[in-house]
């Protein structure tokens, strides 16, 4: 009897560090945890005579708690984003139902058409709404020329409704893409079973389709809400004074007002409020049960189903929404060829002078070069780090790997205004000066998780017996990786790279905090628009849009070719 045998330590209590895990923990600490802790820490400091006082205080929170203006602003901020996401859902949910369940041919084209705006610069999409709603905008000029109004009205732009409208416009693709998958995933046999059991179409919707899609709707809604609630550019561009939101206030604390601790406290307040909203949205739409996997996959409606009333209604809705999504963008393209400094109809002569003007603009060219450098660096870092992290998370048994994965993706879920501040704090503390390096770190913080998630999803979908088969057939671990795993995840990694390029090239909200004097292209354009408008902006945006579109098309082409292989 081994009376004094060392007690067996359960495996999970043993502390062991696996070498490949070190970079994961390092990234987690440096890019996610420390910057966020800094934000929390900063919120307990105060400012005296323009300098930060390093004495813990609850002063900022007390000030917020007693400020009626803050509560009003918070309510208004949430209202804008909630209304925007709600209107977006009203359009996107039925549209996703139509594409996911009623359409059989060209489903992927119909999907891509709705998603393309996601790849087009947010700045461009917001700016295009100014073209429509502004005092000299298309809406006003057509109302005046048709005699409905005597003078151009200022009632369209710089109001709360214009912010809500633009937010809804931004929300539609997010909600569409989240819910589409849920609609596609419902096995046709469930719908048939419901009919067979005596349910009418309405009953089938209420008792089968809605419970199986509401979770995705809540996720899409939350996604759209998160994107718009952290957006301080849109409110300031189309909302003016009336559109001021918490995000605008926060960004000003890190700009003109220069009160970082107060800005940090505002950010924390925003995060808390946002968490409550998202929590309620997800809580009210619970998911129950999982597909057992033995259902026949959905093939859309059975062959031979004739177009019915619902199909026609769906087509009309789809057409209207897509027109809504593209009209502002097309308008901008049209004006970029219009020989007039006024953004109004009727159109003047066709001209290329706005494009020609761009070629001679040294500020623009420098900004474009900078954007290119940033994009290349960000994509390199993100794809290498993201892919390796995905492999480590998938193949190495990390303790709490699920929690680590969630924490790594935290920057994606943060309102961008807050992420911007967090990255300012995180880079400031380790002495990275404002400029390209800061921008690269800041953008990589949220682009890396995208690549990681894409690769991770692909890895999880791989049949684990593929790797076993390869080992069984005499390949070493390294060979198996090179010949089996790598080719299979390449598509996801390339997809992540392309997405990263467009995201990096279009990013404004985070970059604005980090750029300092080194403006990237979208920042340069943003500043141009603030200091005065020239139609050249239309031309820049048209080129940017073309760039984003061609990237998407290349991505589609590659993924399609891979699928055929």
């Amino acid at each position: 009897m081994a009376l004094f045998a060392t007690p067996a330590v359960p495996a999970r209590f043993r502390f062991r560090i696996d070498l490949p895990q070190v970079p994961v923990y390092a990234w987690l600490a440096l890019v996610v945890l420390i910057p966020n802790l800094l934000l929390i820490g900063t919120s307990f400091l105060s400012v005296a005579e323009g300098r930060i006082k390093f004495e813990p205080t609850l002063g900022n929170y007390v000030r917020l708690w007693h400020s009626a203006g803050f509560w009003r602003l918070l309510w208004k901020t949430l209202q804008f984003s909630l209304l925007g996401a709600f209107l977006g859902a009203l359009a996107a949910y039925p549209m996703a139902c139509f594409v996911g369940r009623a359409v059989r041919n060209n489903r992927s084209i119909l999907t891509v058409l709705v998603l393309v705006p996601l790849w087009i610069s947010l700045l461009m999409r917001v700016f295009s709404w100014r073209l429509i709603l502004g005092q000299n905008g298309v809406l006003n000029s057509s109302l005046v020329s048709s005699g409905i109004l005597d003078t151009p009205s200022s009632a369209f732009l710089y109001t709360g409704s214009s912010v809500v409208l633009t937010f809804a416009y931004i929300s539609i693709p997010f909600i569409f893409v989240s819910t589409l998958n849920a609609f596609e995933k419902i096995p046709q046999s469930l719908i048939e079973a419901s009919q067979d059991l005596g349910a009418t179409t309405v009953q089938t919707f209420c008792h089968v389709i809605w419970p199986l899609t509401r979770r995705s709707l809540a996720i899409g809604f939350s996604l759209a809400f998160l994107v718009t609630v952290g957006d301080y550019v849109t409110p300031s561009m189309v909302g003016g004074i009336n559109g001021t939101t918490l995000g605008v206030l926060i960004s000003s604390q890190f700009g003109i007002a220069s009160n970082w601790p107060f800005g940090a406290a505002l950010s924390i307040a925003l995060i808390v409020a946002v968490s409550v909203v998202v929590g309620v949205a997800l809580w009210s739409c619970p998911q129950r049960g999982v597909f057992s996997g033995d259902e026949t996959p959905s093939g859309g409606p059975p062959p031979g189903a004739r177009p019915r009333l619902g199909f026609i209604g769906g087509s009309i809705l789809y057409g209207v929404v897509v027109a809504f999504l593209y009209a502002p963008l097309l308008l901008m393209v049209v004006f970029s060829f219009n020989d007039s400094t006024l953004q109004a109809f009727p159109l003047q002569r066709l001209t290329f002078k706005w494009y020609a003007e761009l070629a001679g603009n040294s500020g623009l060219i420098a900004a474009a070069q900078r954007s290119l450098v940033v994009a290349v660096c960000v994509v390199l870092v993100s794809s290498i780090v993201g892919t390796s992290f995905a492999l480590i998370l998938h193949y190495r048994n990390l303790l709490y790997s699920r929690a680590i994965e969630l924490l790594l993706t935290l920057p994606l879920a943060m309102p961008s205004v807050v992420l911007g501040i967090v990255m300012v704090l995180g880079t400031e503390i380790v002495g990275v000066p404002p400029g390209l390096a800061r921008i690269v770190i800041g953008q990589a913080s949220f682009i890396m998780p995208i690549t990681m998630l894409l690769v991770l999803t692909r890895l999880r979908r791989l049949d684990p017996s593929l790797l076993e088969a390869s080992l069984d057939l005499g390949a070493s671990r390294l060979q198996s990786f090179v010949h089996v795993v790598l080719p299979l995840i390449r598509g996801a990694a390339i997809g992540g790279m392309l997405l990263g390029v467009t995201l990096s090239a279009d990013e404004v909200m985070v970059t604005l905090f980090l750029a300092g004097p080194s403006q990237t292209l979208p920042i340069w354009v943003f500043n141009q628009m603030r200091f005065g408008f020239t139609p050249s902006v239309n031309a820049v945006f048209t080129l940017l849009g073309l760039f984003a579109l061609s990237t998407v098309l290349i991505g589609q082409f590659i993924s399609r070719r891979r699928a055929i292989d």
Partner: protein
Amino acid sequence: MQQAVGSYVLSLENVAKTYPGNTKRALDRVSFEVAAGEFFSILGPSGSGKTTILRTIAGFEKPDEGRVVMAGGDVTHLPPNRRDLRTVFQSYALFPHLTIGENVQYPLRMSGMGKLERTRKAAEALELVAMEPLAGRLPHLLSGGQRQRAALARAVVSRPQLLLLDEPLGALDLRLRQQMQHTLVSLQKELGIAFVYVTHDQGEALSMSDRVLVMREGRIAQLGRPQDLYFKPRSEFVAEFVGNSNMLPVEFTADHGSYVGSIGGVTFPEMRGDKSGKARVAVRYDNVHIYPAKENSGTSRLSGIVENVLFLGTNIEVDMRCGDLRIMGSLPAGRADSIVAGQAVSIGLDLADASVFHV
């Protein structure tokens, strides 16, 4: 057609269907009737149209021609939710977000029944299939066999006139299959609901059904009682598909006023025909007898070599070669040890009730 409405729960009249993009008909003027309380099976290889028949009856497919008539009248153009029948789907199609109890209550809830009553009825239906203790579980927490029984309970809870079953046992292992076959038959007798049961497993169809419809390429190959199909197949296809039969070439020659057949050069006097020339005869595996090669009783025997022996539990299947012919025989498993591959054997054929098909 008056009579069909009276004593039949279902009648298909010249139903034809071609899927868009196909030139071949999936169903080619199919007509049959199902009696009240009957266990009716549709048997056929994949692609023979049996699932199309089922989907047409259920209302998921519209026939191009013909009518589907149920006791209440013509239902050809009625949507699925207004037909008095239920389907047990091959995939079970249990709603993943509803518990087993809620799944079973679903049709009652759709028809607006009160909560109390539908809970009671659902419990009853679940009790029929011994699933009541699991009523509170979600489907993904159940085994395949349990899901199968839940789907069955859901289909019978509102006591339809007719139950359609689309290869419901396809995903189950052998033991469960056999158990479920018994459950199905006793459930059907107990409830008195007519079953239309689609399967490609001839054993299943023969053992459970009152009548079997054999489908081939969208047409009816044969419709009859299991023993008719088994002992009196009307075509080579049915004989091969239903009876586990050897199709052996036979040559008839004139002999004492009628014709006698010979197989592989050996004359079998008990095989009489009414026509000379070449034909094919269906010999079921269990009508093949195997003797040691040296034993010769003087009756007609073929001599062959054992190629393969498959042990199937209650019996063994022996694959033999006699010159150009391949003959499969089925023997009681007790004889497994006396037959080995490579052994020379003498083969007797029981041809008394063998079906002959002239070419």
